[in-house]
């Protein structure tokens, strides 16, 4: 059962080949057996999972089930879950029990999915390796001495290790696509505003978007049509109709124009990774797509732009963690300033403090124009590059990451080296574009990801390209040794 995709599980649940309760028990046992060395789950919600599974079985029996009813999932621990600890991977929220459900959580619950627990992550989603979590690093199931990527590293490792078919994630600079690429699974970051962020703990509000990590593009489509759509509780939610993504996957690629992102094939790209991506482009060509090279000259400035904009927004968003109304409070504060400073100093980890201070500096009087305003202008240039490119092509394709998964500990002492992991993923966040990562090969036994980026609200098209690619290839069906 653990090897099946959501689409396959859905058919078998409806055919009553097994019940959601049997499936849930089997996966809970698998989590019990495999989680410790992976550290993918921070919380396992066994009792509520079994209750939800029994409720789903009633819906299945009554003929009142949707396509994801009875399907087990997990949430990145950044999504508020009513009555369940929501830590965001941080000491400052170690004792925080969310008093309500995020909209993503509520919609998946309403559709009848079964939440098995909450997944580990980089603290406040700030990291590219899942090493900044207060609860320790997550291991990559393909090689447990290596990182799974981040920040949705627990979600990625759990899905890759076949502990469950799918998990939610969030993507501010690549935090869904990069871990999906490094663990050999499918990761979708929708358009900015496509999925509600209500109840999703904020990092950088002009960049954050919720999405999913799955084992097939078809599953990503099934989950997206469940979570997408307008939400009055999120002021950045966009009121656009939600297409039936899972019904639009088979459109032929004949005549579809694919742009090969020239700037992504730079000197930082591992040659073996590049070869996998080029082989994937040949598959697209055989499917009838037209390929052409496209240049986005300002794209190489995405990482420095991001490391001004994202810290600036984080320094503002994280000011709410002050030790007063919820979360960690330091011992014996001597006055209110001491309470703020020590609760935050002791509650936040090193990378989060680094980003808050970077943001505080670039927003401070005298430096605002030189850093923050300048970055917002370069962001406009990058956005224009994408807009121009999409006049000529339907989607852009390139690698998701420069290299396969690196060793745990290899980059923790040098923030710039760590930040450059996101060099190919940040552009889509700066421009608010939907982007998908699908497995496209292996280098030294480690998975490589192919990235497909589309114009705003073109999820149906990028999922279509990814799905047809997965029909021609079996990279996404490869299972890490020991997790068969």
């Amino acid at each position, binding site marked *: 059962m653990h090897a099946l995709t959501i689409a396959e599980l859905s058919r078998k649940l409806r055919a009553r080949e097994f019940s959601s309760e049997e499936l849930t028990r089997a996966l809970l046992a698998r989590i019990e057996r495999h989680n410790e060395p992976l550290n993918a789950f921070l919380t396992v919600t066994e009792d509520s999972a079994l209750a939800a599974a029994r409720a789903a079985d009633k819906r299945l029996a009554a003929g009142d089930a949707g396509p994801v009813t009875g399907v087990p999932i997990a949430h990145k621990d950044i999504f508020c879950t009513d009555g369940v600890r929501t830590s965001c991977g941080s000491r400052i929220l170690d004792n925080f029990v969310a008093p309500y459900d995020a909209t993503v959580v509520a919609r998946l619950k309403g559709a009848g999915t079964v939440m098995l627990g909450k997944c580990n992550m980089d603290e406040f989603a700030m990291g590219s390796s899942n090493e900044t979590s207060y609860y320790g690093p997550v291991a990559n199931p393909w090689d447990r001495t290596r990182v799974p990527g981040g920040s949705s590293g627990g979600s990625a490792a759990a899905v890759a290790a076949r502990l469950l078919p799918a998990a939610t994630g969030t993507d501010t600079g690549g935090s869904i696509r990069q871990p999906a690429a490094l663990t050999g699974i499918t990761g979708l970051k929708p358009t900015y505003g496509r999925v509600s962020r209500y109840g999703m703990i904020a990092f950088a509000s002009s960049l954050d978007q919720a999405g999913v990590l799955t084992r097939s593009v078809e599953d990503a489509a099934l989950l997206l049509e469940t979570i997408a759509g307008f939400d009055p509780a999120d002021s950045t939610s966009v009121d656009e109709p939600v297409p039936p993504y899972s019904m639009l996957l088979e459109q032929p690629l004949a005549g579809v124009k694919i742009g090969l992102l020239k700037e992504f094939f730079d000197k930082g790209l591992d040659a073996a990774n590049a070869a996998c991506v080029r082989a994937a482009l040949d598959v697209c060509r055989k499917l009838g797509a037209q390929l052409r090279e496209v240049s986005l000259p300002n794209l190489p400035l995405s990482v420095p732009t991001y490391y001004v904009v994202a810290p600036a927004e984080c320094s503002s968003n994280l*000011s709410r963690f002050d030790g007063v109304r919820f979360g960690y409070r330091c011992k014996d504060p001597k006055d209110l300033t001491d309470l703020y400073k020590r609760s935050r100093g002791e509650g936040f980890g090193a990378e989060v403090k680094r980003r808050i201070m970077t943001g505080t500096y670039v927003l401070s009087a005298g430096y605002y124009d030189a850093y923050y305003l300048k970055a917002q202008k370069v962001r406009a240039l990058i956005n224009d590059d994408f807009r121009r490119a999409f006049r000529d092509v339907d989607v852009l394709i390139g690698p998701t990451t420069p290299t396969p998964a690196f060793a745990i500990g290899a980059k923790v002492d040098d923030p710039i080296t760590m930040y450059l992991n996101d060099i190919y993923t940040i552009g889509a966040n700066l421009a608010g574009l939907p982007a998908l990562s699908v497995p496209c090969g292996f280098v030294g036994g480690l998975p490589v990801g192919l990235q497909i980026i589309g114009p705003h609200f073109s999820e149906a098209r990028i999922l279509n390209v990814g799905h047809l690619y997965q029909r021609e290839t079996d990279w996404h069906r490869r299972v890490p040794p020991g997790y068969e």
Partner: protein
Amino acid sequence: MSTLTRKEVEAIAHLARLAITEAEMPVYVKSLSSILTFVEQLNAADTGAVEPMAHPLAGQVQRLRPDVVTEVDRHEKYQENAPQVEGALYLVPKVIE
């Protein structure tokens, strides 16, 4: 090449209300300096007449809703997460002597 002094980092930490330990301080002086140097690449871009971009979707406007009460009083539930409360109040160290 941007180099921050220890004094400047202390000032930033104070503005951000972060207590930084002696052991952490040299690490931040070094890494914040290297981040600022790294982002100086942005100066190479010609942004003379460019409008700064604050929102990724053009043409979105802030939605307004009718000015009616939508929240119910759930302070007891919310205060289950509070470090220190008394009655319906959140307690902090004395601010005014």
